[in-house]
């Protein structure tokens, strides 16, 4: 198995924040501004060839516990090389925005809308940055840790 962490670290030493690997799952934490550069590289470099964005999601580590508050997580897979890589970008609550990957992998389109809907992280350059699961009238982002679990916003009927 190629050591993907090493490849990326050698290529972009000043864009990589940290990295770790557990049970063969290799993870690279990138600086926010380096996201597009690295993603473009891993997609087009023939020895890596990550042609598939399997998943894109976010994690909220509660503002009191960690700053910056959010992680946006990308799971990449290469169908030709059969290897995987996880890339993370840390996003603060204040500047809740990262670059959109819709121009690289079309599958990012709906994933990014979901992350916006559930966590309120915006994606710069997304063609249609709207809610995807909740209705337009919905206020707030339900998967944020400070969204009260029993807060209800029904469209019709009583609040219960």
């Amino acid at each position, binding site marked *: 198995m190629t050591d993907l962490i090493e490849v990326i670290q050698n290529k972009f030493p000043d864009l990589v924040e940290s990295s770790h690997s557990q049970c063969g799952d290799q993870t690279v934490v990138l600086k926010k501004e380096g996201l597009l550069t690295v993603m473009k590289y891993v997609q087009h470099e023939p020895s890596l060839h990550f042609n598939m964005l399997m998943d894109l999601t976010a994690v909220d580590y509660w503002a009191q516990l960690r700053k910056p508050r959010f992680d946006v997580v990308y799971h990449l897979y290469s169908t030709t090389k059969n290897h995987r890589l996880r890339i993370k970008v840390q996003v603060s609550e204040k500047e809740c925005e990262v670059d959109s990957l819709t121009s690289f992998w079309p599958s990012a389109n709906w994933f990014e809308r979901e992350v916006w809907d559930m966590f309120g992280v915006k994606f710069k350059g997304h063609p249609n940055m709207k809610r995807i699961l*909740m209705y337009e009238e919905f206020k707030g982002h*339900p998967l944020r840790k400070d969204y009260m679990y029993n807060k*209800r*916003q*029904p*469209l*019709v*009927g009583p609040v219960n």
Partner: protein
Amino acid sequence: MELTAPQKENIQKIEHSNLFTPGFFSSKVSEVVGWARKNSIFQFPMVTACCGMEYMSVACSHYDIDRFGAGFPRFSPRQSDVLFVVGTISHKMAPVMKRIYEQMTEPKWVVAFGVCTCTGGFYDNYATVQGIDTIIPVDVYIPGCPPRPETVIDGLIKLQEKIEHSGFESRPGK
């Protein structure tokens, strides 16, 4: 075979409860209408989640709700008289369900199929309606996650009893 006394009594009871006891015919139109309605249920299955699998198994030949006259699902609310709400109803779906209910012609009945529709089930969260009876009136609740086909048939029989005795009134108090 000799029948025991309780058995005979039972048979008598059944015969008396039958609308068409040999030699007699009910003179009450409401009873005839009730009998006809309960045996020709045209249901509208509004299937939104996993309970749908169980609905399919009751509807198909294994359990076969056609035996109860409810074998013909209609996919237009205008042509149906029982709304089967099968599966989780989210707040986003709730206006749609209400609309479907309003589009149905009287007389109409509603069955809540599965705990999700009865109470919200274990989805105590931002997205799920905590019981469809907060939005539309419900006649029969079928609990279970998902309910076994036997439970569904039991619920259907209860609904039939209700329909039979509701006469021309489609809904008590209306």
